[in-house]
């Protein structure tokens, strides 16, 4: 979202051509109309939902024990899966952005696959792998780890769908910043581990932060894979989206109220921490 720079007058905007750029340069008027239409497509349904909220009942609906349990579980699992995403995703992005190996394009496409897969398909794939009768299910059972119907299954499902967001974001930042600083650090005698900690991580921090926020938001909204893979039990696997889906069956007002909570949490997280990079 570009903000108009109020310190520059319209005539000055036309006259200047420096890199910071006047606000309307390269933005034909028709794009404003189309952009507004696009924004409406996203905002109008939210307005429509707001209009159906039963405001009088809202406090009671969102403070019911099952609603509170679902929200708490959602925040807990989304935080855990975001941490997992950062742990796994940064090295993945580094390998994808800074190395060359045969089949790299295919690997990259596979890593991004969860972005385009319907979540149910993701759930089925996870089931076939980590399920009790899946590829690794028996191994886990021998190790005494029960994944089926556990909170672990929820975190796995959320990590599966959210990881590509983090990898994409960090990889883009790595590519944009180039490898010059790392090269300089290395020629000055820094070991790869030191370069990673002292140069690469600080460089990708903005991308890492926005990627982590996107991953958290995606994990918070995860529904299909969780339902297919983890099941639905209050306090254990029934996250807020699952609770909304269930309430819709019997109490549409409660479903709308909980949907509002989810939207508010998502907006707070996005607005509070997601800062798109600006020209400095």
């Amino acid at each position, binding site marked *: 979202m570009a903000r108009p720079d109020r310190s520059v007058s319209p005539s000055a905007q036309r006259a200047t051509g420096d890199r910071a750029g006047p606000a309307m340069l390269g933005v034909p008027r028709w794009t404003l109309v189309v952009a507004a239409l696009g924004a409406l497509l996203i905002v109008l349904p939210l307005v429509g939902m707001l209009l159906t909220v039963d405001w009088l009942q809202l406090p009671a609906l969102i403070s019911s024990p099952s609603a509170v349990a679902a929200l708490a579980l959602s925040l807990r699992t989304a935080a855990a899966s975001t941490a997992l995403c950062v742990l796994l995703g940064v090295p993945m992005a580094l390998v994808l952005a800074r190395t060359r190996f045969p089949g790299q394009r295919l690997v990259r496409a596979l890593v991004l696959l969860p972005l385009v897969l319907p979540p149910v398909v993701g759930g089925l794939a996870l089931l076939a792998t980590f399920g009790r009768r899946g590829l690794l299910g028996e191994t886990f059972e021998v190790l005494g780890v029960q994944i089926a119907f556990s909170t672990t299954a929820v975190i796995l499902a959320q990590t599966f769908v959210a990881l590509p967001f983090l990898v994409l974001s960090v990889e883009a930042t790595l590519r944009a910043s180039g490898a010059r600083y790392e090269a300089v650090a290395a020629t000055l005698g820094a070991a790869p581990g030191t370069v990673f900690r002292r140069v690469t991580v600080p460089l990708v921090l903005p991308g890492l932060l926005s990627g982590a926020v996107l991953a958290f938001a995606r994990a918070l909204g995860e529904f299909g894979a969780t339902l297919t893979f983890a099941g639905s039990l209050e306090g254990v696997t029934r996250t807020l989206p699952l609770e909304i889906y269930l309430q819709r069956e019997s*109490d549409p007002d409660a479903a709308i109220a909980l949907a509002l909570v989810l939207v508010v949490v998502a907006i707070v997280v996005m607005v509070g921490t997601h800062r798109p990079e600006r020209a400095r």
Partner: protein
Amino acid sequence: MRRRATTVLTLATTALALTGCAAGSGTAGAEGTGTLTVFAAASLAGTFTEIAGDFEADNPGVTVRLTFGGSADLVSQVSEGAPADVIATADAATMTRLTETGLVAGTGSVVFATNTLEIAVPADNPAGIRSFADLAAPGLALVICAPQVPCGATTAAVAAAAGVRLTPVSEENSVTDVLGKVQSGEADAGLVYVTDVAAAGTDVLGIEFAESTAVVNEYPIAVLAESTQSQPTRSVGSLAGDFTRFVTGPAGQAILREAGFGAP
């Protein structure tokens, strides 16, 4: 195998119905011809596809358009003005909601089938379940429907009648989700309808239990007041009425019985 064949049939019929609708919309209301839109509960997908096919064969020029979904969903769609001629739900409660709002034609609804619960276990029955009481065993991965949905309400009532306290590892939104968890072997046991076990094929073993008769689920069918096919267009009566009579008649009942549904 049987389930796969039914799915293919459903798809084929839906495709036919869709194309038939586009091409034949101008003929609606003519003598004994036209398109009949039927909303039916998801658990009726197999049987109603078969029934609709037979009904079309008996009534040349008639196309039956089937829409399957959760009963509550279908009822809210009709309430919001979805054009349907006939609706068949999986429980009496949802149909009552329609009747109370005056959306059902004067003839009212009629029960055409019943369904009871059955225990579903993976084919090899890993937990050795033999009775309803076995479902209370500690450590058992039992999956049931959530109490908010019709199958879950039935489950709760049956458990209460049997005096068995169930501690499921998951409460699903639909009977198909429960069946899926049993089929994949994730769950040791699940509670689903008799007809679901019959349709599931060889991956799933059904275990009948005496306590199931405590709650019998009734399936009502009704002609909708807004139906464009409820007017008598010929001597035998309206097309929508004909269809409901076909379902409650011997031909429809035979198909329903074959799939495991009980008599009304």
